[in-house]
């Protein structure tokens, strides 16, 4: 009996997903009974890995690696066997990267072994070179109305020397009730010929795996010229769009069920909002771009939020801008694909925009645009408010809006975010979070909170807040590791 391990690739990055090809051969002249390597409840074969990640050799089996509840595998676990006829081969791929825990860069050696009923088989060493991970510019996409068990797509820029690359990550909410996220997969997507600080994943109004397009976009700059680069597939070449020097991306961009990506841009000194639109789904041909809509504001725009309605409602596109007119915050609502003038505007007096003017925009199933934004005042205390404005299906302001105090404290917090829950288009329990650069945060959701706590690993900045069905997450960027999502808890903020 022979056991063999092979891999199409020997070089990976810390945390990168890979599978190893296992081949079990009956090289004898009589049938043999052997543990089934592809039964995940089997304590055999065992896989031994040695290297920087495991100074002492780590030995793992399929059973031990997949035990429910992170329990240890029982020592007396039964062995599920297969019978191999003489010369018969059993082979397949195993997700060993998930089992081996290779968290340190360096060369690792992997050996598979079977010892069963007096038969012993040991594979030759498979050498795996693991490169360090140095991520930056992470972006976590949202698929509106989709359980996070289906996965949340994220991308980041990996820097290895001068080489910038895009890596994709898929998070899945393994236990919504416990706020437990697993990294399903981290994989290399593309090397970049020009550096980029960040890469962006658009938000989708459906499960993004239902379409063909897999949108990413990023900005490169070279000798004072900025380009917006957009791709709809790792198989296609990105399309470039020249950006004015003062142009700014307004996030998130949105992708709809018709393979269309809309990227809002703020140009012309911050007074013009325009939409760069791309059509994809034709990989390996690059996507096609256009600038279908622009609107000139009367004053400086601090932020704008683009939101998509559901596919069932025709992928409605609504844009809300936050302007400052004569010292007063003004919220304006637009129909993208419609006139370039707002359907309604409403001043919100007395408050100032937080850094980045965080806002959340959502188009409900019945076509109402909900906008929530964070404002602050700083008198004796630093006080943060949430303004709520809803616009009906005709674009008219519903009521006069409302404002509520979220938190009052002495010291400001420099980072802020506010988001609608991703899983339900019509959910109203908007989440908000404030944080400092030391990982201290205050957050709330709906009527709950505020709660405060601290996250020991660096937060992704700008904050990427993801309220899901039962837990709310912040994106973190632990050094040398793949970005992650951490569920928020915390202690009640004491009055």
């Amino acid at each position, binding site marked *: 009996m022979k056991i063999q391990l092979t891999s199409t690739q020997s070089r990976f990055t810390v945390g990168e997903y890979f599978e190893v090809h296992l081949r079990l051969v009956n090289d004898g002249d009589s049938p043999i009974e052997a543990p089934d390597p592809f039964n995940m409840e089997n304590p055999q074969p065992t896989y031994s890995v040695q290297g920087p990640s495991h100074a002492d050799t780590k030995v793992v089996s399929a059973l031990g690696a997949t035990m429910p*509840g992170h329990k240890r595998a029982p020592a007396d676990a039964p062995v599920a066997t297969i019978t191999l006829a003489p010369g018969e081969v059993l082979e397949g*791929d195993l997700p060993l990267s998930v089992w081996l825990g290779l968290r340190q860069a360096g060369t690792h050696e992997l050996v598979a072994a079977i010892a069963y009923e007096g038969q012993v088989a040991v594979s030759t060493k498979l050498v795996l070179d693991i490169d360090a991970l140095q991520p930056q510019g992470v972006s976590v996409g949202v698929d509106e109305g989709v359980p996070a*068990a289906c996965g949340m797509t994220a991308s980041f820029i990996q820097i290895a020397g001068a080489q910038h690359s895009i890596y994709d990550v898929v998070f899945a909410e393994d236990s919504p009730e416990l706020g437990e996220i697993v990294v399903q997969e981290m994989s290399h997507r593309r090397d970049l010929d020009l550096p980029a600080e960040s890469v962006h994943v658009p938000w989708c109004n459906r499960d993004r795996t239902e379409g063909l397009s897999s949108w990413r976009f990023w900005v490169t700059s070279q000798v004072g010229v900025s380009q917006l680069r957009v791709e709809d597939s790792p198989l296609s070449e990105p399309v470039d769009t020249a950006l004015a020097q003062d142009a700014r991306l307004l996030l998130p961009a949105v992708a709809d069920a018709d393979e269309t990506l809309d990227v809002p841009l703020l140009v012309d000194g911050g007074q013009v909002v325009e939409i760069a639109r791309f059509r994809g789904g034709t990989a390996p041909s690059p996507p096609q771009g256009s600038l279908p809509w622009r609107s000139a504001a009367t004053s400086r725009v601090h932020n704008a939020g683009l939101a998509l309605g559901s596919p069932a409602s025709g992928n409605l596109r609504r844009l809300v801008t936050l302007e400052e007119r004569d010292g007063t915050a003004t919220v304006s609502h637009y129909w993208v694909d419609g006139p370039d003038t707002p359907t309604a505007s409403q001043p919100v007096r007395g408050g100032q925009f937080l850094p980045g003017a965080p806002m959340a925009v959502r188009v409900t199933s019945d076509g109402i645009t909900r906008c929530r934004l964070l404002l602050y005042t700083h008198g004796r205390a630093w006080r943060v408010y949430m303004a709520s404005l809803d616009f009906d299906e005709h674009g008219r302001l519903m009521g006069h809006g409302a404002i509520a105090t979220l938190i009052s404290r002495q010291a400001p917090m420099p980072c802020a975010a506010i988001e609608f829950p991703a899983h339900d288009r019509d959910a109203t329990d908007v989440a908000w979070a404030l944080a400092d650069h030391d990982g201290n945060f205050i957050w709330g959701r709906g009527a709950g909170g505020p709660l405060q*706590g601290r996250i020991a690993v660096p937060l992704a900045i700008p904050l990427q807040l993801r309220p899901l069905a*039962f*837990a709310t997450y912040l994106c973190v960027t632990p050094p040398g590791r793949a970005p992650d999502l951490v569920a928020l808890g915390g202690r009640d903020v004491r009055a």
Partner: protein
Amino acid sequence: MRAEFHCRTTQYALVSNSSPGDVTTMTPVRAAEAVTVVSGLLQSAPHVLRGLWSDMFGRTVPSPSDVEIAARLSAELQDPLSGIRLYQQPGRAVADSPTGPAAIDLADLAEPPAVQDTTTWIAFELLDQNDEPIGLLHYEITEPTGFVRIGQLNADGVVFVGGADPGNYTITFVEAELIELGEDGPNVDDLEDFGVMSLVVRGPGGQETVSWTSDEAPPSANDPVEFHIAPQTETVTIAYTIEDPQGRTEEATLQLLIEDDDGDEQILWSRELEADQYAQGDHEVEWDGSIDVSEQFPDGFVIVEHSPYTLRIQVHSQTGEAQPPEVSTRFAVDIAAVELELGDRLSLQRDIDKALYDVIAPAGLPASGSALDLKLVSNVYKLNLAEMTSDAAFSAYQTLWGDGPNVPILASLKLKDSGGNAVDAPKGLGGVDVVWRWHSVDCDTSGITALPKAFIDDALDFDKELTEPEGDNCHVDRGGLRGPGAADVFPSSAGYPPAAALQDGSCPFQVEPDTEFGNVSISNPWTSGVLGGKTGVLFRPSRMAGDVWNFEVYLRRDATPDGPASGAVVATSGDFKVKREIHVVAGLKKTAAIPSANLTSFGSHYTPANMEVVNNVAAVSAMAAATYNTRFAAAISGQSATVQASIDSTVDQHAGGNWALTFRSWSGFTAAIRAARGFTAAQLVTWLAGAGARYNTASKYHSYLKGWAKVITTAACGAYMPAASGITVIQFMRLYNLETSPGARRLGGWAPSVSAPVRDKCMFIMCPSSYGSASWVKSTLAHEIGHQLFLPHSPFPAPGSTGAPSGSGDWQERHDSTDAKCIMSYSSGSLEFCGLCVLRLRGWSALWLSKQPDENSRP
């Protein structure tokens, strides 16, 4: 006072000037006419006369005769200074005859003497030979009609009789023959001694008080008074002896006295005896303890409040000094026993309290030395993840039970009767203040595993000896009721007046917290009504499981700063042990072939928290195939198109196996995707490289199935939750069919949050692949239900190690940092809840609890 009656068509009101009531619509009746009315009543309706007398002057001892009443009433009405007046309602016809003692019917009343305007008056003065007035002598005036008026001279020997018709009157002094007149007055040397010789109060059983005369030393105020009476409940005899062979006594007074705080005697009540009552000889008067109604005696009976009492008779004569002039005796009205009982359910307002009442009522209150479990049903479960780290566990439980359960308690106050028996005598309780004083009984942690015990003991030792009272019940800073500023254990109540029936949802008694002692409240008993002789409170111990309470009840009179004085009559309750109770309300399994899990055993893990898990499931039942398939089909249809492609809609999900869900193989999945979307081969390649890259190997595809199965199964099983509050447990052998395939992930079970979570229900779905290990089922159920009860994972094994739980680190703040064996961890071995989990399960607020055990202590 005011007493009303009517005569013919006229309504009269006999009023006293001290409290006449409203007489503005009435006109005063002239004295002569008033006397006529009284005379008429004496002739025709003496019972009305007695009623009027009783209403005006109360019940007196000895009771006057009808003639005496008429005479004294007439005298009062004729005396301009007496303050008693008769008014009439002019022209007011009486439509209906009022009932009651002060009302008479016209048919009962004979024609009264004609009232004539020609009436005159008679006045006379009786003097002795020295022109000194002879007072207090009784007289009889025989009128021309033969009607005899009876009366008594005043102290100056004068009488005024109004309303006299012209004619001849005969005046007779029936006692005159007793007065021997000499030339210069009575011959004192020939007079025999007179005086009051003894006075005792005698009970029906013959027990009697001791008397002393003014010639004898009175008993010390500190001497216990051995003779008690139970007002209204028993009738005693006041027996006294007058030595006065020559009838020298001119005045005798019966007095009731107490000693005030300075030791001075204070007359509470006084009554002049009639002549026949102080005549020579032994006298006996029956008495039920009634006296005049006054502010001090609102019910008109002697009461505990002023006890002991001195009863005294004084005699006087102008013919000389009585020997002895007075005699006294003492008696007491006192508490014999305080008996505690469960109050009436009607006093409770909240349904949750009524339900608790129904549970404890059959056994009643615990006797001193025994204990009663107050099991607070609290199916309170988390709604979202954040509630595991916030203080939602505390606030949700607080929302359910408020400051604690309300248990109506009655204290029945028994009085001593003359025979030494404890009897009900409500009228003796007027004005009594009753003290309710609670105590914190130390929590027994002896049965708890060492590390949790140490943590709990530290937390219990928080101002343990500094609060009033001392104890280790949950401190107010942790949400309990021990310590300054805590809510009252005996909540204040306005109460309501004694009544024949209780009001719904209201404590009958006035209850107020003592201003000095934090653990003391004061209540007052009812002296009549359905709860006459009783007082009570709503007892509201904290809702914190593990707290143990008891209380004492005694008279405020007997209170000292340290509790009841030595020898005081005290009732002590048994211990009330507060516990929480949660329910398992449904148990289902996919097929009968799946071994039924023991849904009871895991409750033992909750014992340290004093939380009882009640299994209301008689037997785990199998799910019907049709219902199962319908519910799962509905759940699948709610998923995205990609997820739906992983399941063959033609597969009978119920028949597929003992797992919850049957998925397609990877090749089947990709084929379904291609077919459903009309992909060309090239498009499928594009999809698997891009949008569908996460599913581009079998292992990757398998890795998602656990999550999808959880979402679908949770959605489908939500409909299996019954209406009852509590836990639903659902069993499968596995979660899905491909669990052993490469990349697949398994799980033993999960405690899902259903799509529309409610506070009072939760679910646990088990799919452990083997139910062979009873200990696994037990600990897993305890762990998962712990999540539903707001407990997050424990940070053990340490972060970074294999099997370490994820989380932001806030989780760590909710667990004992020294206890790696918390059952909420992923540690191996014998696990129990850590001390911090136990305290949160008990209901404590986590706000000020530290993960460091010693930081929770404040000795």
